[in-house]
């Protein structure tokens, strides 16, 4: 299952350098790891591929990142920010 940002959802950096998700009439603050995950959504990568890339970037074991990535994506799908 691959992921991408939902229609009308944009990843952006605020004036103070904070990563944010811009959604219809709203702004969602993101932490660094959430932003790094969302940057990798391209409509082709699945959760494992995203975890693998994050593991390389943050030099962490992919097995540990995998469940975090899934939890975050499930939450964002539920909130309508991400679609599969």
């Amino acid at each position, binding site marked *: 299952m691959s992921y991408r940002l939902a*229609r009308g959802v*944009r990843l952006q950096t*605020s*004036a103070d350098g904070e990563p944010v998700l*811009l959604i*219809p*009439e709203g*702004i969602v603050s993101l932490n660094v790891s959430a932003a790094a995950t969302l940057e990798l959504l391209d409509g082709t990568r699945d959760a494992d591929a995203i975890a693998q890339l994050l593991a390389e970037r943050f030099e962490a074991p992919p097995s540990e990142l995998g469940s975090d990535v899934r939890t975050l994506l499930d939450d964002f799908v539920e909130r309508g920010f991400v679609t599969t």
Partner: protein
Amino acid sequence: MTPNPRSLLCELTYRCNLQCPYCYNPLDLGNPRDDLDVDTWLRVLDEAAQLGILQIGFSGGEPTLRRADLLRMVERSTAHGAYTNLITQGTFLDARYLDELLAAGLAHVQISIQAPERESAFAIAGTDVHERKLEALRLVATRDVALTLNCVLHRLNHDALPEVIAFAEREGIRKLELANVQFYGWAYKNRGALIPTREQVERSATIVTAARDRLRGKMEIVYVLPDYFEEFPKPCMHGWAQVALTVTPDGRILPCPAAAAIATLAFPTVRDGSLADAWRDSAAFQAYRGTDWMPDPCRSCDRRERDFGGCRCQAFLLAGDAGATDPACSKSPHHDLVVALRGGGPVPEALPVPRRFTAATPAQHEASSIPSA
């Protein structure tokens, strides 16, 4: 230190070809001759970018009546990296114009309907445009842009709530906003005719809960709670002058779209200074910012940083004092004014008054500049 605002609502004009009696626009719609020119609007958008504003809304009146100007404003906002929302009734959205707006970067379209079918929609809007809206809705749904369907609920259409949800389902809507009428401007004038009954409010809560469960994952339903029926007031605008500002068609800078009603405050205008000046230094923006201004019961209330004393406009309209606790709060000494309006309360007007310009600004303004679609 004052935080910077995060969103700006641009009201491009109060002209509109509909006459909805629940409109929150002010009773005095002014004169469209005083509408800001596009160069001033573009400067306002530049100032918004300097303030770090990321969310821009385009509303009115009907913003698409300023067809070419709106397009330039969307382009400019996008160039600044802002997210753009068009709040429209949809009757002027043809394919060519929509595609121009999308090419300019428009991210989200909100289209309103008055009722789930033509006859009732006509009765409420005073203009027979339901079918035209349906075309616009279907057009936007075919494009790569976020779409919200909005329906303002009030006594005259509350009973059609299940049909509104069914309409949205039929049209494949992903996000439905059911907004109970809020009593400002024309809606405040018409509150006796528009306030839903207690039975309607209770029934709608059950209907919305069931629909949300049934449509989970298919349609998001945003339900704006009915004013005047809750124990505590809404956390209006997340506090006065905390996150958002509005610029009116004639250039007044307001902390919320309804604030022009507060006759005791003098609001800054974009003609006299920048958005930053207004936000940081104007007396009107500082008047009710934070918690220092609060009287009791707000001052000693443990909810003071949750609902911020409620709505200043409502306090002014109902209690005659913008610095009073929102009468919608059960702790307000003026709460009886709200209780009296609920459901079986007095009905000052059987039929609502349609929104319109005053005699001083002839009705032809409403139609004169409407482009042929």
